[in-house]
């Protein structure tokens, strides 16, 4: 018989469209192949700066998202009690009418009674602006429960941050240290980078209590005890200082190391920078023996010593303070080893390796450049040591300082934005901190004076009333969370329920599964969402409007559901005003374009928001006649809206002819231009502008021209943070605005201008002894939060989660693989099936995040493994600190930024009784699907239609 004949050259598709993936927030470029109008294949776009052609496990499952039976189909109005998931389908006109009526009343009476929170970070540039126009300060997106520690620590220290605002120089680095990262937002860039790094044989050290994912391919895994990285890093700093292995030249030139700090204990100026009359910081010129303007080039600054200011006060350089603090024996490796769970020799060796790589491994790139002062340098010096950190650091109540400590280490090694080090992604670096301040509540019918989110520089910028109490529902920018750059999304429901600091009227949420995997204390949250005021019989949170694309757990708790499109059905704008997708070689932004038409009566939420804005007559959304300014929805807005003249949502192809970038008049053909370019725009920085961006004239000029910064002034990296000191001074009784008595000691302790380490609050709790183990979660690479349980492919890979523990721990407690165990915290308990492993810190247990699902949600069968075996640690995470009996409980957050302390969780475990084995517990009542949801397919074989030779 002849060999089997197959068609090797069958046509893949009849049409290929580009767009931007949104199976996660990494936002890669994709090419979508269509055949006969049906989705055939999604692959990475090789031209795209984010993913360079590759795709991840989620992205390649996009077809099944479109195929999901959990897609909402029509607007829904609640008919039963909240949480019963009983709805009536309504028309869009009715839905928008209801929403406009509710919101209109609020705006006319007290705009702050609308709390508008968006979970994912999609389109904050629009949603934040909408909130501002509406006039509510009660707006935030996912950053607060995500990684605001990371963002704030970076933006208050180096003018950029890890997260996705910078990246390791994967091309040149020789020593890469990663702290607490399982996946991160830059999903594909990190993977591409690690591939490159390993290919070059560079050394990769991962600091993480768990050895999976990236840690698995690291050359060295440092299985640290959770919450102790700060101490580890400060110990590294001590070792480097002792050995003189710091980059003094870099410190003198690019950081505030030489700036003089006033030493006037007890006085209002203590700890602030010594400044001249013009307010410019001073340093001591050691060559001339006199005070000098710290912003003047060519001085010879002293880094240590004690000096006198003109007014007689004493002052010392920042570096002196820093060295005094960290040379202390408190940070000796031997001292910290038992706390961090890493042997002293290892700490010492790693310090040695860092120094070795940074200094003996110094690299030079023969690329001339000009610094901010106009000095020409004929090459770029590289310190090929780079760091990256994410939620393992930030999701702790000491995360802000830990993250600052890592930035301190970077600065001391001279590895910020140098070849081989950490590199900023434009539009970063920004002034430290960025100049936008949060805007507070306003009178009825008014818009906010500025954006609701921003960066406070001193107590005067806080959003508090006369008594020092919070003005925002989440208490962001109050004495509880002064540097809350992203708001405290995790506290909205609890505070609104308690009416603390005030009751609200409507909670509007977008893309946030807040009755489930993004809340702490889930059982309590569910109660709060359904709780009624016994007096009035009204819900404590009177109205909830929610936009989701799928039947998530949160849908059941909404009164009005506005069904969204999927990412393949709509326009989206990935703007530089938002969370950009730039890389270190240049800024980038992108759009999504509709690839397929929705087969349901759904609308893009962003279009809906603009429509609502027009119905409400919000400024910026209506013209003089009160007609909608953007009748074309988001596509219209992203082309025509200007924040200030010339500055719009998209930076590419601006100006009438589409030739301008950054700033330029709106271009009516901008979307076509993006589509023609693969739906993205990327500008390549000139080579001389690619490093030292904080002090590189060519870059700074470029940034001004692009509208990233206002003035081409160098960004001086801040080892010592003066804004923090202003809070400390307030706590010590200085200044106009001082914290209420109950906050004084906290502010005094936690607003240390130099990084400190303290045990996470849960460990300081008086009952800590009862809960000896740390419990943390990790992102599974194949799942994006709760999004993918409806995805037929991804859920086959993981549809239930185990609790992982060290084999030694399991053996000690008589727990074997597959045993069911009970995990108990001071908040509650949950049942899960155990899996023993080697690569985990012995005091730590962990699981995959957001795998557990509420029965019935996502249009899964009620007995789906996600519901019967999958579980959330969230059930156990308290949303308040225990406070050891204090009257007003504080949120379970970082005291500086309000970052949710997910990973502070402490637990104990025990084996279940045999009769308890088999399912997780608590098991919540199954959710009924809303009307209109389709029958679940019992089989998927729709690929048959594409089989070559079949038609």
């Amino acid at each position, binding site marked *: *018989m002849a060999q089997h004949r197959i068609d090797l050259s069958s046509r893949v598709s009849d049409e290929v469209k580009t767009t931007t993936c949104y199976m996660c927030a990494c936002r890669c470029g994709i090419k979508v192949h269509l055949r006969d109008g049906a989705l055939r294949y999604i692959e990475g776009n090789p031209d795209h700066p984010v993913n360079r052609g590759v795709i991840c496990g989620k992205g390649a499952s996009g077809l099944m998202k479109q195929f999901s039976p959990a897609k909402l189909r029509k607007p829904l109005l609640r008919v039963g009690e909240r949480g019963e998931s009983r709805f009536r389908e309504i028309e869009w006109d009715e839905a928008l009418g209801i929403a406009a009526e509710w919101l209109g009343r609020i705006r006319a009476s007290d705009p702050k009674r609308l709390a508008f929170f968006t979970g994912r970070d999609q389109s904050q540039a629009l949603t934040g602006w909408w909130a501002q126009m509406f006039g509510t300060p009660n707006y935030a997106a996912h950053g607060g429960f995500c990684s605001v520690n990371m963002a704030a620590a970076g933006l208050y220290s180096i003018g950029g941050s890890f997260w996705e605002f910078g990246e390791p120089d994967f091309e040149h680095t020789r020593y890469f240290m990663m702290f607490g990262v399982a996946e991160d937002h830059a999903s594909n860039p990190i993977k591409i980078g690690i591939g490159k790094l390993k290919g070059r044989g560079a050394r990769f050290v991962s600091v993480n209590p768990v050895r*999976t994912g990236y840690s698995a391919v690291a050359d060295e895994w440092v299985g640290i005890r959770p919450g102790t990285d700060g101490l580890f890093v400060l110990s590294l700093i001590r070792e480097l200082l002792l050995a003189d292995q710091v980059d003094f030249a870099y410190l003198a030139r690019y950081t505030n190391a030489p700036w003089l700090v006033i030493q006037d204990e007890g006085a209002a100026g203590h700890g602030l920078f010594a400044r001249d009359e013009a307010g410019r910081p001073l340093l001591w010129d050691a060559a001339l023996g006199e005070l000098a303007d710290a912003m003047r080039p060519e001085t010879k600054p002293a880094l240590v010593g004690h000096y006198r200011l003109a007014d007689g006060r004493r002052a010392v350089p920042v570096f002196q303070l820093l060295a005094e603090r960290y040379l202390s024996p408190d940070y000796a490796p031997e001292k910290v080893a038992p706390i961090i769970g890493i042997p002293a020799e290892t700490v010492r060796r790693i310090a040695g390796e860092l120094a070795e790589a940074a200094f003996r491994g110094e690299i030079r790139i023969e690329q001339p450049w000009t610094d901010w002062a106009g000095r020409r340098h004929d090459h770029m010096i590289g310190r090929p040591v780079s760091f990256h950190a994410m939620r393992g650091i930030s999701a702790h109540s000491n995360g802000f300082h830990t993250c600052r400590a890592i930035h301190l280490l970077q600065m001391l090694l001279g590895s910020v934005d140098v070849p081989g080090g950490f590199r900023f992604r434009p539009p970063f670096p920004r002034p430290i901190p960025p100049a936008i301040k949060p805007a507070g509540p306003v009178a009825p019918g008014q818009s906010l004076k500025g954006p609701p989110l921003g960066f406070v520089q001193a107590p005067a910028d806080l959003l508090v009333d006369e008594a020092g109490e919070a003005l925002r529902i989440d208490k962001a920018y109050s004495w509880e969370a002064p540097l809350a750059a992203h708001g405290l999304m995790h506290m909205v429901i609890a505070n609104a329920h308690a009416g603390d600091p005030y009751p609200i009227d409507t909670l509007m949420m977008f893309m946030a599964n807040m009755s489930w995997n993004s809340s702490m204390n889930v059982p309590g949250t569910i109660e709060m969402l359904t709780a009624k005021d016994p007096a009035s019989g009204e819900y404590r949170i009177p109205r909830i409007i929610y936009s989701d694309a799928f039947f998530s757990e949160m849908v059941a708790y909404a009164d009005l559901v506005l069904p969204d499109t999927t990412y393949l059905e709509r326009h989206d704008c990935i703007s530089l005003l938002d969370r950009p997708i730039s890389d270190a070689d240049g800024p980038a932004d992108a759009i999504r374009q509709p690839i397929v038409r929705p087969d349901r009566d759904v609308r893009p939420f962003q279009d809906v928001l603009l429509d609502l804005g027009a119905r409400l007559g919000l400024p910026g959304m209506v013209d003089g006649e009160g007609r909608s300014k953007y009748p074309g929805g988001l596509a219209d807005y992203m082309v025509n809206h200007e924040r200030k003249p010339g500055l719009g949502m998209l930076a590419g192809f601006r100006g009438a002819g589409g030739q301008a970038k950054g700033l330029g008049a709106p271009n009516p053909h901008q979307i076509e231009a993006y589509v023609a370019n693969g739906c993205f725009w990327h500008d390549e920085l000139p080579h001389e502008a690619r490093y030292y961006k904080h002090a590189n004239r060519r870059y700074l000029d470029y940034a001004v021209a692009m509208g990233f910064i206002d003035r081409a002034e160098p960004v001086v990296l801040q080892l010592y943070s003066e804004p923090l000191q202003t809070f400390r001074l307030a706590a010590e009784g200085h200044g106009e605005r001082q914290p209420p008595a109950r906050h004084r000691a906290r502010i005094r302790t936690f607003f240390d201008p130099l990084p400190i380490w303290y045990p996470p609050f849960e460990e300081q709790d008086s009952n800590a002894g009862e809960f000896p183990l740390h419990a943390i979660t990790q992102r599974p690479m194949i799942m994006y939060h709760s999004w993918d349980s409806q995805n037929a492919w991804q859920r*086959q*890979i*993981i*549809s*239930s989660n185990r609790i992982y523990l060290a084999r030694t721990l399991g053996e000690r407690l008589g727990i074997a693989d597959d045993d069911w165990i009970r995990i108990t915290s001071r908040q509650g308990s949950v049942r899960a099936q155990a*899996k023993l492993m*080697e690569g985990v810190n012995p005091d730590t247990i962990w699981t995959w995040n957001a795998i557990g699902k509420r029965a019935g949600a996502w249009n899964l069968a009620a007995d789906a*493994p996600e519901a019967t075996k999958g579980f959330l640690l969230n059930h156990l995470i308290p949303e308040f600190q225990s406070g050891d009996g204090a009257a007003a409980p504080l949120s379970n957050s970082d005291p500086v930024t309000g970052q949710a302390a997910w990973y502070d969780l402490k637990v104990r475990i025990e084996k279940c009784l045999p009769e308890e084995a088999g399912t997780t517990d608590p098991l919540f009542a199954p959710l009924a699907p809303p009307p209109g949801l389709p029958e679940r397919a019992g089989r998927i074989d729709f690929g048959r239609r594409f089989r070559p030779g079949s038609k």
Partner: protein
Amino acid sequence: MHPAYSVIYFTVASGAGYGLLFLLGLQAAFDLLPAHPWSAPASGLFALALVTTGLLSSTLHLGHKLRAWRAVTQWRSSWLSREGVLALIGLPVAVAFLYGMAFQNDAGWWRALGLAVAMLSALTVHATAMIYASLKPIRHWNNPLTVPVYLLLALASGGVADLAIDAAFGDVTLASGLLGLALLAAGIAVKRGYWRSVDAGEAPSSPESATGLGAIGRVRLLERPHTEENYLLKEMGYQVARRHARRLRLVAQVLGFLVPALALAAALMLSGGVLAALALFLALAAMLAGLLVERWLFFAEAKHTVTLYYGAGRV
């Protein structure tokens, strides 16, 4: 390995059928057929019934039953194909042989065919056994005793069937009875030898060789590629508890060998008559039941190397 009932029935039934045909063929060739004219044809018919229902049953688990005929094309390399070819050749030969035996008693040709029937029957069982014995990923099958076990158990069960049918016609001789006992003894001996061998044996493969990570140390599964069962696990990840398996081995031995042997001995002592025949039918029923258990275990206890990727410490 997942014990598929259709395949278990097939190997037991066709084994007994071929065993019986083998014995009839030889008896015919050497003119040793029982005296009663219907005894041998009845045995032959019974054998054919066992073989054909077995073969039919074996197609039940196929994904495409109607294409089963294609299975005879690859006799050059595939034992399954060879089994099919042999079965297809064997069937008409056996039918002709039986026809001759029943209706052409005087003619000599069918006696000569007896040799062919015996040979084809033995070869078919051998081919069946080789399907399993040739599979390197399954240590419990890729064993030198697999083929002898199949052959001997086919012969022994065929022998007991022969005796039972002969007894129904009152034709059991001491010699044939003793031969039956000898076959049972040999059968259990090699099956026990087989069990000893697989219990003591070590697979050449391990999680370390399956992953190639042995140089680092002991290899353990951390994360399965999918949380629920898939084809591989359903088909090849079947596990039977060791205690359960031990108990079933005992059942197989008692039903498959001890009871038949006792019944046979009793029948011999009764030397004919209805009771003897009943005892021999009891022996046959017990034996077939025992062999079903034995065959179930042959699958259930067999471990496939793919399980090394799913957490098995050894196969």
